[in-house]
């Protein structure tokens, strides 16, 4: 029997009104509907203990809420709950509370939310509201009119329990002795079930399947389904990065080894004793030296496909997942900073695209995606107690079908733990395989494929996942604050893509094999098939290698911290990957074949530079209005609503946050002091200019890398203690032209990283960011995200007293521009405003930039610079305006001598790389000019006693107006 507890928010007293109601009334007002909304939090369970006061007291607040009150005085009731198998975090907590209070059975508790709406609304209006508040992939919604509600005795109790019918499922044999056409079908659609349906794409090409066929011929038997699924996971683009590993044109060792990894190797060699790298490309994150005692680690992930379908779930799973990459670095690094980054379509626009030809399954609108991903990182980051000061949001409408969601985590780890290097770990033969954290369900099986059939109503579980930050926080604290230093485990890694198949498989490479018993894996619900357990991507799990004598102690300790840890097998040196199920061996493959058996696929590329003629157009008449328009560009304006929702000063470590100056301008870099006893700070930044790809992906990649380096240096980072991460989000990576663009981009960053001496320490790629769907007439549509290379930078500032914010400090200070300006508006915000692409896309003069950054690092140490802003989107014009807004100070600027006879509009908005605008107090001018006498350094004006930004006496705008235009476009989100 189902019991239902309804907690109604009081509304008699207006001053008691629930903030969540006010928010929904606000949404409705935006649609021209005036309504009164009350919220009822609903708890449903087969456990009668939910009726007990110990439970109701802990889920309701008697000051603001009523328990099981009579529900009346409304026109519509809308209830939103989860579909079976979807992570219900509040439900988990409620279940824990039941146990805590001594409930006699362990039936789960489930939550839903009921909205009681009073107002003049039609059913269609309520359906619209339901669509904006829920996601049918993961949630159910029920709408009842007042009369229906009363006639049916309320909403009814729904228990979204997962029920699987394959109770006795074992491993099936798969016949690979079939014609090529059937093999191809197998790769594309998956293994056939007994009823003829397919299990979902394996993503194995014919070439790969042939290799598998040959292997099992040699073994003298047919493979099992779990073996095929394991190979599909292990050999996937996601795990093996096959495009980056494959021979490409004349580059026989592949793009990754030849460019990215080689850049780092060569830089490390060149720097010798000054090498800052400690662990690169080999672990879950990259690690560099922070100080004598600590390393800092960094990893940036993407979570694009999931975020397109469930933005909140995709983003929270992403951020909580990348936290685990940090926990899984070396012996376990403590997460100390989060990063985020979004590439989205204009949230103010609506797009009519569909996933199906019948136009019944619309894509999510950009504002839904934006709100969802922002909320996902908010929930994941804030609940984990990790500050999130660093991030960006870039807009381009070609991200409409495939938004890019970047999430990153910086970790801190002692250089030495129990006398051993903190970054070193190894699973030894004989070590037990221990799974820690959440239980395993069907979550994320074939996560990359999202078949709509599998997600239809009635589907028992879901491929969409929602992170559970608190489950993870419990073991995260236990690992980095207690267990790690007890020395109980030999190695640790996270469970991400591919679940156990990938984490155990990777760790077993160190020992030389494994033998695992799937019956021992704790499950969320019974009835899963062995292959499902093995590749499930259920979140919040780590895998450890534990010497047998330590397992009891380790498991008992985790239990005291409310975490479940279970021995599920053993690492061996047998050279075999073995799995048992119900006493039978269902997988037994060569480790070598598993990891290195995939055949090479040589790639061929072509490259054509894009762009068009440089446009000719008259000089703008009103520069003041033009600057205001530029400030309203989505790539330039403030995204304050994101930054304020992200806790950026938890851990007490924030030095330079997302908002700078009285005017709260969002900076490109942030500084965090992760160790109270050390004056050193971690400087983070990033750079990306996706639109430049329309002209030249090499320029796109190099400009982004330069921006990442320059912003960090401008804030005070030591140019010589700076490392980089590359995140490559490409499209249509099976087309030679796209691969040619890729090769050019990667070659570009190789050269620039070499020239700067800044090593890559980690990276990730996502190669198929294309939306393939239909317009409203059923015509096929393909929208490819612009080739996007994000470079993230992580550096160290030796003393946070030497940090430099972008806000000018005092009237009378002198303003300089460092770095020359050229006629480079191709792909710029300015040309885009005018509707042009252009041709003169910015590139990087590496030698000049390198010298400038060296001088700047010296100047930062001597504290001669009062404020600094790197010049990026919107060029000098946007940068000067941001300075004026941040400091709330006037500026008198004359750019006449900056770039010869370059027309003022191009001078203001060209996005030439390598430039920084700085202000210097008069007594330090002499020292400053001496430090920069070998590089382009031009005095352009001073901070003025006015309330205006004045440029060349042609552009004069009040600071208040600049402020308004800068903050207006996204202020209502």
């Amino acid at each position, binding site marked *: 029997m189902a019991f239902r507890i309804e907690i109604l928010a009081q509304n008699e*007293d207006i*001053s*008691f009104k*629930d*903030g*969540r109601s*006010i928010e929904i009334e606000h949404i409705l007002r935006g649609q021209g509907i005036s309504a009164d909304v009350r919220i009822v*939090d609903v708890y449903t369970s087969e456990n009668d203990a939910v009726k007990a006061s*110990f439970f109701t007291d*802990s*889920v*309701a*607040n*008697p*000051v*603001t809420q009523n328990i099981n009150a009579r529900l009346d005085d409304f026109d519509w009731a809308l209830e939103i709950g989860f579909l079976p198998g979807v992570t219900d*975090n*509040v439900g988990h*907590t*409620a279940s*824990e*509370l039941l146990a*805590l*209070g001594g409930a006699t059975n362990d039936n789960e508790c489930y939550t839903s939310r009921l909205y009681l709406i009073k107002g003049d609304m039609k059913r269609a209006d309520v359906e619209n509201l339901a669509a904006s508040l829920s996601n049918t992939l993961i949630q159910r919604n029920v709408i009842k009119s007042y009369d229906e509600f009363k006639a049916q005795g309320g909403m009814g109790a729904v228990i979204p329990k997962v029920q699987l019918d394959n109770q006795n499922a074992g491993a099936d044999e798969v016949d690979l002795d079939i014609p090529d056409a059937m093999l191809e079908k197998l790769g594309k659609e998956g293994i056939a079930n007994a009823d003829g349906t397919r299990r979902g794409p394996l993503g194995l090409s014919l070439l790969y399947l042939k290799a598998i066929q040959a292997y099992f011929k040699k073994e003298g038997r047919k493979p099992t389904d779990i073996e095929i699924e394991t190979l599909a996971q292990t050999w996937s683009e996601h795990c093996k990065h096959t495009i980056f590993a494959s021979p490409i044109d004349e580059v026989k060792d592949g793009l990754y080894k030849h460019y990215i990894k080689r850049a780092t190797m060569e830089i490390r060699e060149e720097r010798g004793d000054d090498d800052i790298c400690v662990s690169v490309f080999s672990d879950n994150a990259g690690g560099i030296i922070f100080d004598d005692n600590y390393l800092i680690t960094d990893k940036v992930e993407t979570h694009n496909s999931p975020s397109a379908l469930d933005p909140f779930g995709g983003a929270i799973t992403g951020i909580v997942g990348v936290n685990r990459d940090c926990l899984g670095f070396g012996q376990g690094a403590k997460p100390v900073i989060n990063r985020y980054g979004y590439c989205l379509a204009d949230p103010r626009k609506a797009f009519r695209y569909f996933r199906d030809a019948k136009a019944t399954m619309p894509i999510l609108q950009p504002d839904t995606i934006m709100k969802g991903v922002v909320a996902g990182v*908010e929930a994941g980051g*804030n*609940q*984990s107690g990790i500050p999130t000061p660093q991030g960006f949001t870039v807009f381009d409408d070609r991200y409409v079908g495939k938004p890019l969601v970047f999430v990153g985590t910086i970790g801190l780890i002692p250089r030495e733990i129990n006398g051993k290097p903190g970054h070193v770990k190894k699973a030894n033969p004989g070590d037990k395989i221990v799974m820690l954290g959440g239980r395993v369900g069907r979550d994320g099986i074939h996560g990359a494929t999202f078949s709509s059939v599998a997600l239809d109503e009635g589907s028992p579980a879901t491929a969409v996942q929602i992170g559970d930050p*608190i489950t993870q*926080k*419990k073991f995260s*604290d236990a690992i980095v604050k207690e267990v790690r230093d007890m020395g109980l485990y030999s190695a640790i890694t996270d469970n991400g893509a591919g679940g156990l198949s990938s984490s155990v498989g990777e760790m077993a490479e160190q020992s030389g094999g494994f033998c695992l018993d799937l019956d021992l894996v704790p499950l969320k619900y019974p009835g899963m098939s062995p292959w499902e357990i093995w590749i499930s991507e259920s979140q919040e799990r780590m895998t450890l290698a534990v010497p047998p004598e330590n397992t009891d102690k380790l498991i008992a300790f985790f239990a*005291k*911290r*409310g975490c479940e840890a279970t021995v599920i097998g053993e690492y061996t040196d047998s050279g075999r990957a073995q799995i048992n199920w119900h006493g039978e061996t269902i997988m037994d493959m060569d480790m070598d074949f598993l990891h290195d058996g995939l055949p090479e696929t040589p790639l061929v590329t072509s490259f054509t530079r894009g762009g068009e003629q440089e446009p000719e157009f008259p000089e703008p008449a009103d520069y003041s209005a033009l600057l205001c328009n530029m400030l309203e560009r989505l790539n330039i304006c403030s995204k304050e*609503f994101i*930054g*304020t*929702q*992200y*806790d*950026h*000063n*938890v*851990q*007490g*470590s*924030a*030095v*330079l946050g997302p*908002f700078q*100056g009285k005017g709260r301008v969002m900076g490109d870099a942030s500084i965090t002091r992760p160790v*109270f006893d050390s004056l050193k700070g971690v400087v983070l930044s990033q750079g990306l200019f996706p639109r430049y790809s329309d002209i030249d992906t090499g320029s796109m990649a190099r400009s982004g890398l330069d921006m990442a380096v320059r912003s960090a240096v401008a804030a005070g980072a030591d140019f010589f203690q700076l490392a980089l991460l590359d995140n490559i989000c490409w499209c249509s990576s099976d087309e030679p032209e796209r691969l040619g663009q890729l090769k050019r981009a990667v070659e570009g960053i190789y050269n620039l990283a070499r020239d700067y001496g800044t090593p890559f320490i980690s990276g990730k790629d996502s190669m198929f960011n294309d939306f393939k769907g239909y317009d409203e007439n059923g015509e096929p549509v393909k929208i490819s995200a612009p080739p996007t290379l994000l470079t993230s930078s992580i550096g160290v500032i030796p003393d*946070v*007293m030497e*940090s430099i914010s972008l*806000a000018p*400090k*005092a009237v009378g200070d002198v303003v300089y521009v460092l770095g020359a300006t050229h006629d480079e508006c191709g792909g710029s915000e300015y040309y885009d405003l005018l509707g042009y692409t252009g041709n003169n896309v910015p590139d990087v003069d590496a030698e000049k930039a390198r010298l400038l950054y060296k001088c700047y690092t010296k100047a930062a140490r001597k*504290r001669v610079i009062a404020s600094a802003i790197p010049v990026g989107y919107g060029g000098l014009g946007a940068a000067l305006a941001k300075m004026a807004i941040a400091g709330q100070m006037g500026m008198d600027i004359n750019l006449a001598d900056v770039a010869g006879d370059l027309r003022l509009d191009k001078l203001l908005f060209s996005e030439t790389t390598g430039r920084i605008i700085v202000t210097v107090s008069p007594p330090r001018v002499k020292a400053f000019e001496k430090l920069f006498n070998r590089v382009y350094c031009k005095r352009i004006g001073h901070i003025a006693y006015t309330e205006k930004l004045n440029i060349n006496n042609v552009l004069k705008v009040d600071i208040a107006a600049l402020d308004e235009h800068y903050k207006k476009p996204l202020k209502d989100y």
Partner: protein
Amino acid sequence: MSARVLVIAGYGLNCEEETLHAFKYCGLQGDIRHINDVIEAPQLLNEYNILAIPGGFSYGDDTGSGNAFAQKIKLALWQPLTEFVARDTLTIGICNGCQILSNLGLVPAFDRQYGQRVIAVTHNINARYQCRWVDLKVDSASPWLVGVESMHIPVAHGEGRFIMDAGVHSLLRDNGQIAARYCKGNGNPANGEFPYNPNGAMDDIAAITDQTGKVLAIMPHPERGMFTWQRDDFDVLKDTAQREGTDLPENADGIRVFQNAAAYFQE
């Protein structure tokens, strides 16, 4: 022997390290202990003079912020906790800790009736998590706030809005239990105006105490504004000091709370 501080951790509390650092910086000794360890050995409380429940997201704010954690304490640690509070001790709850103390009824505890829940700390009126710096006007006889008239420290919460009925509010006011209110930069009342009052709290309330003043429940984070380098205007302050050739003070407003705790036990 100096007083000892116990900072509670676990289940999503997350500010324990910086909170303990604040106390230690002020000369106190102390430990972070997981709530399960305290529940297992409640006599541990006898070793301490100061109890701090730090900020965080206990149980992810599920079932209402601080609710589930308060329930855990009520079920497993209530008696020893009331005994602790009855001794000559100090207790502070910051942010999530403030929500927990309110749900436990350790504040306002009129007539020392600990355990009655009469104040809610609930969803911000704009239904958005807010991380920003605020100004507080402090007016309290609490030992935690001796000599403190104002503070510039940050808030970081999604549920920080104090709500209570009119009767509770007047008692609180008349008893001098409203320890701090949000105000504008010039000290004028915020009058509910965003962003000065970041959450819509009734009467701009940012912190309350029990009737003895020894239990302080405060939504803003003094431990995130205890040093000058943590301040939002650190860049300006250090620049000014450099220009004027003066030393930049190491401490900022928030440290006063912890210094007061240390001073209380030195008397």
